[in-house]
C-alpha cells in the first residue's frame, strides 16, 4: 500500500491524503492514489480558484452553453451556435515548446468537437521573455512551429492571436490557445454518461506512457532547475490522428449514435471518465485490459492516467455499438468498448475480472477541498523596472525617432512573420485575415452575417493594477471587435498567474477576477467558460499576472466588416472616443525603462461602452473607411499602423491636441500615451465623421494620402516614409530567418 509520503510526492497534502482515506473508508491503493492525486490537482479541481470564479457572471440572452461543459457557446442566430474556449499549455511549452504548443492546440480543438461543434478557427496568445534572449528565440520559434504544425495539418485556420515579450516571462513562457467551433444548436452534445448498462467506447490513438502525470507534475507546481528531466511528461501530438478522430466524432454525432461524448485531456481516462460519471450521476466500470496500448507492460494506474493525445470517450446504446465501431473503422481510429455505465456512483477499474480500484465518483469530483486564498497587497516594486532601450526625448526632433522605436518594439512590431506560418484560409470563411482588421472576421453559413474574434491580455498593465488592468484587457478586446463592426456576445478567459499560495499572487488573482466580473457585468456579456493556469513562476519570480480574454462578437453583414488600414485617398482622419492618454505603464515607458506604476487611472466602463458602440454602428453601416483602436504605443503608433495596413500615407496636424505641449514629456503623452479601449483612429468622409461626433468625441487629425506619414504638432514635425515605417514595423522578421 502507498504511504502518505508517496501521496505528497504526487502533489497531495497530508491533510488531503487523510481526507481521501476518510472518503473511501480505507487507505487508497496504488491505482486509487494515482487517480485521486490527479483529480485533486489544481489543474483538475481548481482548488485555489473555484470560489473566486463563482463570482463571474455566466448568464446572458445569447448564451447557448455556459461553464461546466468542455466549451461554452453562444447563439449566433438561424439555429447556429459558436462554441469557444481558451486553454493554457504553459508548462509543457516551457519544457518542450514545439510539442507543448502543438498539443495545446490539439487539446483545445478536442474540447470544441467534444461538444459536437466543428472547429472553425484557432487563435493563440503567447508570452515570452525579451526577444534578445536566446531562450526566447528558441521558445518562440518552436512554439510557433508547433502551433502551425498542428493547426495547418488538421485543416483548421489560425486566424489571429497576440504575442507579448516581457522579462518576467523569460523562465515561464505562456502558450494559450483558443478555438472556436460551429454547430447547429440542436446538435450540441453533453458529456454526462447515461443509461445503465450502456457501453463505454474509447476511440482514437492507442494509449502509451506519454504525459504520465502531466496535470499534477507539470501544471500544478512551479518550474525548477531540473525541468529538462520532466520532458517525458510532455505529450506528443499527431494532428493526422486528431483529424481522423475529429471527423469520426462529428460523423458519429451526425448519425445520432452518441449518448455522451468527452475528450481525454489532462489526466486522461481518469478525469474524462470521472467527469462523465459525475455529470450523469452514474457509475462507470472500466476494464483497462481492453484499452489498446502502444507499449507493453503498462500498469493499470499508468493506463488510467496516461495523457496520450487524440483520444475520445463516448457512451452509446448497446444496439448502436456495431455501427459506432464501423464508423471508427471507416476513419481508422480503432474504437473499443472498454466498460459500461453502472448505477453504483463509483468509478471502478478492472483488469479482466480483477477489481483494482473502487472510488466514489462524488469523492473524486466534488469533494476535493477548495481553499480560501490568503490575500495581501504586495509592496510596490514586485517587478523590476524593464531594461531601458530608448533614451528620454529632449528636443522636438526626437519624436520621429520615438515613433520608429515604438513601431519596432517587439510588442508592437508586425506579427505577420508569425501569422504567415499559419494557414488562415482553410474552410473558406476568413473575411478578415491577420492585420487586415483589429479582429478576425469569419462568415457564417448561408447568411450575410459573421462573427468577429479577438484575444487580448496585456500582463504588464495588470501587474500595475490587477483590477483596472483586467478591465482594460476586456475593453481592449471589445474595442477590437467594435473596429470590425461586431457586438460582443460572450467571453472566455485563461487566467495565467503565479503561485496562489503566496498572498501577493492571491491578491493579484482576486483583484483580477473582480475586475473581470465587473467588466463583464457592465458590458452585459457572460463568461461562457475558461481555464486557470497557476504556479507560473520560477527562480526569476512570478510572471506578470496575465488574464487572457477571448471574445466572440457578431456582425450583421460581413461585406461591411471593418478594416484597420486607411482605404481611400482624401479621407479625413480623426481620433474618436474619450481618449485620455497617460504614459505610466505604457509601451514607451517600458522602452525608457520606467518602473511600473502602482495603480492605473480608473476606467468608466459605461462611457467606453457607449463610445465603442458608436464606432461599431458607424463601421457596420459602412460610414467609416477604417477603424483602428489606439493601443500600445498610443495615437501616433495607431495612425502609423493604419498607414501600413492600408498602404497609404497620411498628413496630420495635431496642433489642437499638442498646442499646450511646450515640453517633450507632455508631447510624448499626447502622441504616445495610452488609454486602452478608449481611443479610435478612424477615417472616412468628413460628413460621416461629423455625424460620428454627435455620438462620441471626435477630433479631426488630417487626411489620407501620399507615401509618407507627415505630422505637425506645434513646433514639432515628424516625417517618415511608408518604407521607413514598414522597415521598423518588420522588426520581428529576423527572428524567423
Amino acid at each position, binding site marked *: 500500500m502507498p504511504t502518505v509520503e508517496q501521496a505528497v510526492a504526487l502533489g497531495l497534502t497530508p491533510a488531503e491524503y487523510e481526507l481521501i482515506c476518510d472518503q473511501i473508508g480505507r487507505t487508497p491503493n496504488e491505482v486509487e492514489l494515482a487517480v485521486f492525486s490527479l483529480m485533486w490537482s489544481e489543474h483538475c479541481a481548481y482548488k485555489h480558484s473555484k470560489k473566486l470564479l463563482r463570482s463571474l457572471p455566466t448568464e446572458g440572452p445569447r448564451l447557448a452553453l455556459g461553464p461546466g461543459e468542455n466549451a461554452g457557446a453562444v447563439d449566433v442566430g438561424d439555429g447556429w451556435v459558436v462554441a469557444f474556449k481558451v486553454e493554457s499549455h504553459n508548462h509543457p511549452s516551457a519544457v518542450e515548446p514545439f510539442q507543448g504548443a502543438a498539443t495545446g492546440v490539439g487539446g483545445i480543438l478536442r474540447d470544441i468537437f467534444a461538444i459536437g461543434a466543428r472547429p472553425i478557427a484557432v487563435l493563440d496568445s503567447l508570452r515570452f521573455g525579451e526577444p534578445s534572449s536566446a531562450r526566447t528565440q528558441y521558445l518562440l520559434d518552436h512554439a510557433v512551429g508547433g502551433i*502551425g504544425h498542428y493547426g495547418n495539418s488538421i485543416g483548421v485556420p489560425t486566424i489571429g492571436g497576440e504575442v507579448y515579450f516581457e522579462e518576467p516571462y523569460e523562465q515561464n513562457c505562456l502558450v494559450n490557445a483558443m478555438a472556436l467551433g460551429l454547430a447547429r444548436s440542436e446538435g450540441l452534445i453533453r458529456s454526462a454518461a447515461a443509461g445503465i448498462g450502456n457501453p463505454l467506447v474509447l476511440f482514437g490513438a492507442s494509449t502509451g506512457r506519454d504525459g504520465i502525470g502531466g496535470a499534477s507534475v507539470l501544471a500544478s507546481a512551479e518550474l525548477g532547475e531540473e525541468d529538462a528531466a520532466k520532458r517525458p511528461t510532455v505529450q506528443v501530438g499527431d494532428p493526422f490522428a486528431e483529424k481522423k478522430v475529429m471527423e469520426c466524432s462529428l460523423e458519429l454525432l451526425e448519425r445520432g449514435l452518441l449518448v455522451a461524448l468527452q475528450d481525454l485531456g489532462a489526466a486522461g481516462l481518469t478525469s474524462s471518465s470521472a467527469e462523465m460519471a459525475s455529470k450523469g450521476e452514474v457509475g462507470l466500470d472500466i476494464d483497462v485490459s481492453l484499452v489498446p496500448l502502444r507499449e507493453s507492460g503498462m500498469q493499470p494506474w499508468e493506463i488510467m492516467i496516461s495523457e496520450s493525445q487524440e483520444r475520445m470517450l463516448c457512451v452509446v446504446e448497446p444496439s448502436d455499438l456495431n455501427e459506432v465501431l464501423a464508423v471508427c473503422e471507416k*476513419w481508422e481510429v480503432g474504437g473499443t468498448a472498454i466498460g459500461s455505465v453502472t448505477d453504483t456512483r463509483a468509478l471502478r477499474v478492472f483488469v479482466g475480472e480483477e477489481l483494482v480500484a473502487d472510488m466514489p465518483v462524488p469523492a473524486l469530483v466534488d469533494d476535493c477541498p477548495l481553499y480560501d486564498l490568503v490575500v495581501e497587497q504586495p509592496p510596490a516594486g514586485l517587478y523590476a523596472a524593464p531594461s531601458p532601450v530608448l533614451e528620454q526625448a529632449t528636443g522636438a526632433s526626437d519624436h520621429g525617432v520615438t515613433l520608429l522605436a515604438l513601431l519596432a518594439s517587439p510588442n508592437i512590431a508586425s506579427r505577420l512573420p508569425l501569422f504567415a506560418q499559419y494557414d*488562415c484560409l482553410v*474552410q473558406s470563411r476568413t473575411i478578415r485575415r491577420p492585420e487586415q482588421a483589429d479582429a478576425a472576421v469569419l462568415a457564417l453559413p448561408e447568411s450575410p452575417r459573421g462573427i468577429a474574434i479577438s484575444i487580448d491580455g496585456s500582463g504588464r498593465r495588470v501587474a500595475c493594477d490587477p483590477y483596472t488592468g483586467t478591465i482594460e484587457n476586456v475593453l481592449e478586446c471589445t474595442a477590437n471587435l467594435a473596429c470590425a463592426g461586431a457586438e460582443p456576445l460572450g467571453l472566455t478567459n485563461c487566467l495565467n498567474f503565479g503561485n496562489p499560495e503566496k498572498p501577493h499572487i492571491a491578491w493579484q488573482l482576486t483583484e483580477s477576477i473582480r475586475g473581470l466580473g465587473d467588466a463583464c457585468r457592465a458590458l452585459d456579456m457572460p463568461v461562457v467558460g475558461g481555464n486557470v493556469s497557476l504556479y507560473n513562476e520560477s527562480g526569476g519570480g512570478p510572471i506578470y499576472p496575465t488574464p487572457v480574454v477571448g471574445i466572440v462578437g457578431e456582425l450583421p453583414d460581413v461585406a461591411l466588416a471593418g478594416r484597420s488600414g486607411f482605404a481611400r485617398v482624401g479621407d479625413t482622419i480623426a481620433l474618436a472616443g474619450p481618449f485620455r492618454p497617460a504614459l505610466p505603464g505604457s509601451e514607451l515607458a517600458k522602452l525608457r525603462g520606467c518602473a511600473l506604476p502602482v495603480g492605473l487611472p480608473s476606467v468608466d466602463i459605461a462611457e467606453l461602452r457607449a463610445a465603442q458602440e458608436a464606432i461599431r454602428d458607424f463601421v457596420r453601416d459602412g460610414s467609416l473607411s477604417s477603424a483602428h483602436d489606439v493601443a500600445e504605443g498610443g495615437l501616433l503608433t495607431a495612425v502609423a499602423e493604419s498607414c501600413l495596413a492600408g498602404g497609404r500615407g497620411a498628413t496630420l496636424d495635431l496642433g489642437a491636441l499638442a498646442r499646450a505641449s511646450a515640453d517633450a514629456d507632455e508631447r510624448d503623452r499626447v502622441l504616445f500615451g495610452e488609454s486602452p479601449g478608449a481611443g479610435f483612429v478612424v477615417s472616412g468622409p468628413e460628413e460621416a465623421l461629423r455625424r460620428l461626433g454627435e455620438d462620441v468625441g471626435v477630433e479631426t487629425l488630417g487626411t489620407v494620402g501620399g507615401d509618407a506619414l507627415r505630422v505637425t504638432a506645434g513646433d514639432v514635425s515628424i516625417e517618415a516614409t511608408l518604407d521607413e515605417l514598414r522597415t521598423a514595423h518588420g522588426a520581428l522578421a529576423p527572428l524567423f530567418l
Partner: protein
Amino acid sequence: MRFGVIRFPGSCDEVDAVLACERVPGASAQVLWHRDPDLHDVDAVVVPGGFSYGDYLRVGAIARFSPVMESVIRFAREGGLVLGICNGFQVLCEAGLLPGALLPNLERRFICRQVNLEVVQASMPFTADCAAGELLSIPVKHTTGRYYAPADDLAAMESGGRILLRYARESGAKRTISGNPNGSSNDIAGVRNAAGNVFGLMPHPEHAVDPLTGSVDGLKIFSSMAHAHG
C-alpha cells in the same frame, strides 16, 4: 459538368474545393472517398490540398497507392481531366502523372500568403478563361512546395508550353523582386502533363473564388475546366 473531389484521411481543403467547383455555372461537385475505386462517372477529378495520410514517409507518397488513386491514374491515362492542388499536386507527381517533384521550401517553413501568378499559357483545358500574361491573385500555403525537375526536363517543359503558371515578379519603384515564395525552379507554380489533361499547382485557386475573402481569380481555373468539358 460534374467534378469529383477526393477525400483522403488528412485532406483539409476538399470542402473548399467542392464549394469552388459549385460556383461554376452549371457545375456540381461530389466527394470521392479514398477507399472507393469507383469514380461515379464524374467528368473531372480534383485532388485537393491537405496532408493525405498525414504525409508520413514523404508528401503524397502514401496517397498515391490508395484505391481511388488507382482509378484516377487510369482515368487520366484515358484523357480525363485531373487537377491537383498543393498536396494534390504532390500526389500527382508521386503517381507519375506529372513530371518533377516538390521539395521543402527554401526557407524550410510553412508559408501562407497571397501571391501573384503570371499566366504563361492561356490554353485549354485549365487556363483558357485567362489571358496570357494575366496576373492572378491566389494564396499559397505549404511547407513543401519548391518545384524541382532535372534541367533537361525543365527545358522540354518550357519549350513544350507545359508551364501554365509562374510566380510573378513584382516590380517595385526601384527594382524587380522575385515573387517566388518557395524557391521553385524557373519560378514554376503550376505544370501540366504532355497530353495536357493533368494539371498540378501549389497555389490554392479554391481559396480565391469569393470577393469577400479576397479574390475571385482562382475561379478561372475551375471555369476553364468546365468550358473545356463543354
